[in-house]
């Protein structure tokens, strides 16, 4: 987790709270370093999701894939300076009213084994 990537993301969403941008302000608020805005966790999901969507075994047509639902659960905010390992799992694939629904879960775990954030992404694969 890099300060500059967090800053870039915070600026892009217009979040100007000092705890996202200034390490001293973050420490004064009780955080080890600048923290990531809540939805920054999606950036950590990107690689796993792209790998999954591009997997020939799954055979998804990217043009038909729509992000349908998003859920996050936070134990604490992600912060700069920590190393996080993320694992993406397909939890369920269902089919109803002509569309496939692909439910994925990405766990983000700190080096000490603490589960920090869980992200559930649900994709709709629109039928022909």
């Amino acid at each position: 987790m890099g300060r500059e990537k967090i800053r870039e993301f915070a600026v892009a969403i217009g979040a100007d709270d000092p705890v996202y941008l200034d390490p001293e302000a973050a420490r004064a608020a009780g955080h080890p370093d600048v923290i990531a805005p809540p939805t920054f966790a999606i950036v950590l999901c990107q690689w796993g999701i792209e790998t999954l969507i591009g997997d020939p075994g799954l055979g998804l047509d990217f043009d038909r894939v729509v992000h349908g639902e998003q859920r996050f659960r936070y134990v604490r905010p992600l912060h700069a300076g920590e190393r996080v390992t993320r694992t993406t799992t397909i939890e369920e694939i269902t089919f109803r009213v002509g569309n496939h629904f692909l439910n994925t879960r990405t766990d983000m775990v700190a080096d000490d084994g603490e589960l920090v954030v869980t992200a559930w992404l649900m994709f709709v694969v629109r039928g022909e």
Partner: protein
Amino acid sequence: MDLPARTFRITRTDLVRYAGASGDYNPIHWSDRIARSVGLPGVIAHGMYTMALVARAVTGWVGDPAAIIEYRVRFTRPVVVPDTDEGTELVVTGVVKSTTEEGARVLDLTATCQGEKVLAQARATVRA
């Protein structure tokens, strides 16, 4: 106490900046030609950009950027962003639905663009 309405302006520049910061370069978020080729009226905002703005409304209201412990949305309608200086507007409101045993507040959130709701089942839980 409920979340007062907060309005966010969204322009094409915002979408380009968000694409770079998030790593989501899907061309439906910057190319009218490609957006129309997949049946959209034109370039639409990243769902995750909308979700980020709604989170800003929540953390701004709570007064703590680290307050959100659970956050979910369903993306039901695209936020179309015309290629104009004004772009479009997203209006976010919320009501406190309940309080958990631990004292966390559960907020039901509404995000509208051009008078239409763009999210469903949008809910954030913020720690006491």
